């Protein structure tokens, strides 16, 4: 009954989204405002309709309505109610619905908020965004319908899934469901998938505005950039959070002591992040100087195309990955959608190429403009390198008949130096002036951070001579950190002496008056912290392995692990747990008990290794229970990792979130304009700056 309501509501949502697409394009084409208005109303309704469908799936999961194939597939009686709810995005059908739902939600907010501001663009914004939404709803309705039921043909060995009763089949309701993939039964399941989806779908808004600007020829003006600025930030931060949570999840669950493996599925998410980050920076140039307009278009198209590409390769398994994603029937439909998106965007871009002329020319290679162009190039180069490595197995198999997989070493070697320069640029860019920079002033501005960082590096290098690479890395981190700190200090000093404020007030006001700039610096600080974490991972990680009898110890660095015993007990969610008791000592002093586990999920016949972690700001001690002698619990094998500085990766992530909040915080218009628009001096007044 509830499921039927969900299905009906889903179908109506599909019709509405198709109608909205057609009506808005027609309204725009014929300049008929009433059609656009009607399309807007239909678009706004899609979200509530999909909400009903989503609620119907959630309800069915909650009450365990196993007549639905999806519910039987991803939930089971042994799962806690909370896990059953997260199963909404635990499988293909539910996650595509969830995806469409978020996209419709974004669209509704746009249409409720920004309706009057960009009237000319709106018909096509609705058209492009609703076309995408209609595609995803269509996939949900026709290909991966979460309301499909299980049917049994008399005499058949297997069950059939269909929305409506096939002739001659009997409805079938299993006693219990399969249950969610054990690897997904984790706290990370609340955070990683939804944030990832929010990030991926969020980019559809700036993309739709960009396409609308191209279709209407308004691409000459930069209105679309200002309207979508905050949207881009929102999509970007969710993508960032999704990436970090994904890494954290891998670290906690997959049991290999790391958080990033350059797997195709990870790269699929990293690629749009790279171009999205470049886009965020590039639009600043357009806002301030009316330059890099072509770049913006190319970057937003690339970002959106890469989100679609990423979805495609993860959902179809075209590029083999260690991630277990169900292969599904949505491949061909998706391929057509990708083809239309890529070719449509490209031909639109070409047709309006001439409207994207720069308002100013680059005056000097020694200017902030040039630094921005360089960073765009670096981001694109990294994107290309990662993309190439990701699709290379496919290309090599097609061309030479041999599948060659490039592993992490390729990605590290190729992108490492590029990231080095990029991070360096992040530190020095704020020191460059717009238009032209006198070399002497620049040198003076950099002198203090540079000398100080050399000092720190020398001290560090003296104690860590065995890792030359880490010395470069540490120099980079300390230099960029000091350069950013100098920026804060300059602003603070000016306020404190000029207005005699105390340091805290000055800091709060400094950030408040110029929140985009200082929010950006905080994000950059977060990146520096992450780089520190990556250096720890790259150069100082240690691991060891041993089989221990009770009472025996294993040593790694200053830590010693003593094995005390093994016990097994039935756990929640239908698992059998084998848990080792160990005691961790540092320099001979007892610190705490660690209990690494191996959970065996009986129904799925799948084991999950749960590491025990002792975490400090300096390093994590990460212990895995690898195996034990069957029957007798005498000899048990452990793997022990020492992961120095890894917590800086997560701390850096938090700093990035904080910085984004500061940057996206709505401020009074007066402050923003006053602090943000540069006065172009002798130049002509710039059209398009300040609304």
């Amino acid at each position, binding site marked *: 009954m509830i499921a039927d309501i969900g299905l009906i509501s889903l179908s109506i949502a599909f019709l509405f989204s198709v109608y909205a697409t057609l009506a808005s394009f027609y309204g725009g084409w014929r300049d008929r405002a009433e059609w656009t208005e009607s399309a807007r109303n239909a678009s706004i309704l899609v979200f509530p309709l999909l909400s009903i469908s989503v609620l119907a799936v959630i309800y069915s999961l909650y009450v365990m309505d196993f007549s639905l194939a999806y519910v039987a597939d991803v939930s089971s009686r042994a799962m806690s109610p909370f896990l059953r709810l997260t199963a909404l995005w635990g499988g293909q059908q539910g996650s595509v619905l969830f995806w469409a739902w978020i996209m419709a939600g974004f669209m509704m907010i746009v249409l409720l908020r920004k309706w009057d501001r960009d009237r000319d663009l709106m018909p096509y914004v609705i058209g492009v965004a609703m076309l995408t939404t209609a595609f995803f709803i269509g996939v949900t309705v026709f290909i991966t319908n979460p309301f499909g039921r299980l049917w049994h043909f008399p005499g058949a060995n297997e069950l059939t899934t269909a929305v409506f009763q096939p002739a001659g089949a009997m409805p079938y309701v299993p006693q219990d469901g399969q249950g969610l993939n054990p690897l997904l039964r984790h706290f990370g399941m609340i955070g990683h998938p939804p944030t990832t989806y929010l990030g991926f779908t969020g980019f559809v808004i700036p993309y739709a505005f960009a396409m609308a600007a191209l279709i209407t020829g308004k691409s000459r003006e930069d209105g679309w950039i200002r309207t979508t600025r905050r949207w881009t930030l929102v999509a970007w931060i969710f993508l960032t959070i999704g990436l970090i949570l994904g890494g954290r999840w891998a670290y906690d669950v997959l049991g290999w002591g790391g958080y990033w493996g350059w797997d195709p599925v990870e790269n699929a998410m990293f690629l749009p992040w790279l171009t999205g980050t470049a886009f965020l920076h590039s639009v600043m140039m357009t806002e301030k100087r009316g330059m890099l307009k072509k770049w913006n278009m190319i970057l937003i198209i690339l970002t959106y195309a890469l989100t679609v590409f990423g979805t495609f390769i993860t959902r179809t398994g075209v*590029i083999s990955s260690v991630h277990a994603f169900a292969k599904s029937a949505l491949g061909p439909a998706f391929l057509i959608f990708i083809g239309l998106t890529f*070719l449509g965007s490209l031909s639109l871009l070409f047709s309006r190429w*001439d409207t994207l002329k720069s308002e100013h020319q680059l005056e000097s290679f020694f200017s902030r403009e040039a630094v921005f162009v360089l960073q765009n190039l670096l981001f694109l180069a990294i994107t290309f390198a990662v993309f190439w490595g990701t699709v290379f197995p496919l290309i090599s198999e097609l061309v030479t008949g041999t599948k060659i997989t490039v592993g992490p070493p390729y990605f590290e070697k190729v992108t490492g130096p590029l990231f080095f320069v990029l991070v360096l640029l992040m530190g020095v860019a704020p020191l460059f002036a717009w238009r032209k920079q006198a070399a002497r002033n620049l040198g003076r501005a950099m002198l203090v951070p540079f000398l100080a960082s050399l000092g720190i590096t020398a001290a560090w290098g003296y104690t860590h001579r065995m890792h030359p690479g880490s010395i470069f890395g540490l120099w980079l981190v300390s230099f960029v950190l000091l350069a950013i700190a100098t920026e804060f200090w300059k602003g603070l000093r000016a306020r404190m002496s000029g207005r005699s404020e105390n340091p805290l007030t000055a800091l709060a006001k400094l950030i408040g008056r110029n929140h985009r700039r200082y929010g950006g610096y905080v994000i950059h600080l977060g990146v520096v912290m992450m780089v520190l974490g990556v250096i720890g991972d790259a150069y100082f990680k240690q691991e060891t392995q041993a089989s221990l009898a009770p009472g025996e110890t294993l040593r790694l660095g200053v830590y010693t692990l003593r094995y005390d015993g093994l016990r097994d007990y039935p756990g929640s969610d239908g698992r059998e747990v084998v848990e080792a008791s160990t005691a961790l000592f540092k320099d001979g002093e007892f610190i705490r008990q660690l209990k690494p586990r191996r959970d065996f999920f009986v129904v799925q016949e799948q084991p999950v290794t749960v590491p025990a972690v002792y975490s400090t700001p300096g390093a994590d001690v990460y212990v895995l229970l690898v195996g034990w002698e069957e029957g007798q619990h005498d000899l048990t094998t452990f793997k022990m990792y020492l992961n120095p500085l890894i917590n800086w990766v997560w701390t850096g992530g938090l700093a990035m979130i904080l910085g984004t909040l500061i940057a996206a915080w709505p401020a009074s218009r007066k402050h923003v304009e006053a602090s943000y628009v540069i006065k172009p001096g002798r130049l002509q007044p710039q059209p398009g700056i300040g609304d």
Partner: protein
Amino acid sequence: MIDLEQDLSTESTEQAKPASSKPWQRWSPAGRVVAYAVVLALLGLLAWGLMKVRAGPLQSGLAPDFTLTGFDGRSVTLSELRGQVVVINFWASWCPPCREEAAYLEQTWRKYQDKGVVFIGVDYVDTEKEALAYIDEFDITYLNGPDVATRISQAYNIQGVPETFFVAKNGELRGAHIGPLYPPQLDEKIEELLAEPYQGIGE
């Protein structure tokens, strides 16, 4: 004066050129053709990949023949193993799920090695040093060797690692298993194949 913005017209084909002083007013037709060609090539590549994935691993018919030379120098040819049940396991040292099944595979091999069952481990896209460490770690005693030029994995159209193929006594494929094997899946399959009657055909 350098007009960099104009010059960026070459960028979207992802080949950065240093700024030159020659101003470009528009995309040259050649540039556009290249851009379209790149996009179409990518779409073609994805379509081809999709077709391959949808075909799935080989499940039936005569198992493609191959000769594998092991890390220890022993070698084996599939077609010479008629009359025995063959388990072909594709793995790699860099593959975490492979570790899940490694001990179970070795244990099952020791159980059946004298009962007319042959295990072959095909090491997919790996380095010898790490592969040997892996074999050592799990104390694997059945024949394992590198899949040179990925010929074997392509013949079987594997989707990833680990993946295991079962060959009946008459040389026919009897199914493939994607992902790690857990007890008692492998034992059951082997028992099933061992139970099949087989008359050696004199050649």
